[in-house]
């Protein structure tokens, strides 16, 4: 009997606490702008602890992620490396196109400037002569495009050479640097003529030979084509005088000439097909 009363008392207390709890929950269910001091106390007590554990957990998680995802990361890394290579290749190609565009624009501009004098055809350099002895280029235009032997080949910077042997779709250009590439030139300012030919020297590859010892040739003078010989039209730029030296016989002298065209980096050229009217 006493035991049953004790259990009933316990249940009564339990019910009382339950009702109080629900009532408290009801009053705290509404949105409150501020929390009580007791709530703030608990929160302040736990926050530093939580902060510390979060830091440790986060570090652990990062390490675990790296270990667990190692295979995935490795695969991803390989994939990304492949993509980087692919993109670099594309970037390289884009840069090539950009530079080509600039060069072609210059060509077109140059061609339009000379449009009333010459009819020209653009060509791409596809190969260089494999031996050191010959100085020739191969271009992607040939007999089918109307090219003929001896036609002048130029760039906006200056004279390149003349068409040598011809194929149907390609042609060999004999450069003015070649020992077969001599041409008639003249000093632009004084109109003093001479033969421009190869020196065989890589550093200063051209020279104007057999100039009288009293000829008015000086450094930095521009040399252009004289039009003599019938291959190159008159007035095309060849190079500039870098030095004047006496010939071994002592009666004549020669001018060493640096060409305007950078033959190492030449990629596109213009072939002069016909001269309109001429000079």
């Amino acid at each position, binding site marked *: 009997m006493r035991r049953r009363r004790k259990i009933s008392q*316990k249940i009564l207390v*339990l019910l009382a*606490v*339950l009702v*109080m*709890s*629900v*009532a*408290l*929950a*009801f009053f*705290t*269910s509404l*949105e*409150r702008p501020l*929390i*009580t001091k*007791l*709530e703030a106390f*608990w*929160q302040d*007590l*736990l926050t530093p*602890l*939580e902060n510390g*554990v*979060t830091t440790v*957990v986060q570090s652990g*998680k990062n390490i675990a992620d790296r270990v667990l995802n190692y295979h995935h990361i490795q695969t991803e890394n390989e994939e990304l490396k492949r993509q980087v290579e692919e993109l670099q290749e594309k970037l390289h190609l884009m840069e090539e196109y950009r530079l080509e565009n600039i060069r072609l624009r210059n060509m077109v501009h140059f061609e339009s400037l000379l449009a009333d004098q010459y009819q020209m055809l653009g060509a791409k350099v596809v190969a260089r002569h494999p031996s050191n002895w010959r100085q020739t280029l191969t271009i992607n235009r040939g007999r089918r495009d109307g090219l003929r032997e001896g036609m002048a080949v130029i760039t906006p910077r200056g004279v390149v050479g003349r068409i040598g042997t011809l194929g149907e779709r390609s042609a060999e250009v004999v450069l003015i640097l070649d020992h077969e590439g001599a041409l008639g030139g003249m000093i632009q300012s004084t109109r003093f003529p001479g033969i421009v030919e190869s020196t065989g020297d890589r550093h200063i590859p051209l020279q104007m030979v057999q100039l009288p010892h009293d000829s008015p040739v000086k450094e930095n003078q521009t040399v252009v084509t004289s039009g003599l010989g019938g291959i190159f039209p008159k007035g095309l730029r060849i190079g500039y005088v870098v030095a004047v030296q006496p010939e071994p016989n002592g009666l004549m002298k020669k001018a060493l000439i640096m060409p305007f065209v950078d033959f190492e980096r030449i990629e596109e050229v213009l072939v002069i097909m016909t001269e309109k009217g001429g000079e």
Partner: protein
Amino acid sequence: MHYLVLGAYLFLSLTLEATLFNNLTIWGVKPDLLLILVIIYALFRGSVPGAQLGFFYGLVEDLLLGNFVGLNAAGKMLVGYGIGWGEKRFFKDNLFVPVFTVSVGTVAFLFLYVLLYSIVSGTGHFTAFRQMALPLALYNTLIGTVVYKPLARSLTDGLLRIHRW
């Protein structure tokens, strides 16, 4: 010492639930570490201590959440009281005991919580109960089974033993 350990467990559990277990959820559910101790504590100490611990742990949890203060307290208190009923009736060395009590206690707690919440808020939330009951019961049972042996030892011979003079 007994109360100190219970206090330490309280802080540790709340901290781990707020931090570590955010990354260790099962079907989006975190374990209720305090409930696990309330259940095992009640199993060894009986209804009244179980209800007392449940009420205290629940109240602290409620105070941290800020709204509906008293729901966790009431829920955990009732579960503690109910599980405590089995103190003298269960053979505690059997591992099936924690599996049974923790899973039933968890489902009962969740049901009570949702019931009280629905009464107080005026809207039913039994869909949440249906979605959470199974994963929470499984997760709590898993952890409860792992910590049961050390807790049981602590409650009978260790730091959680009550000294009777």
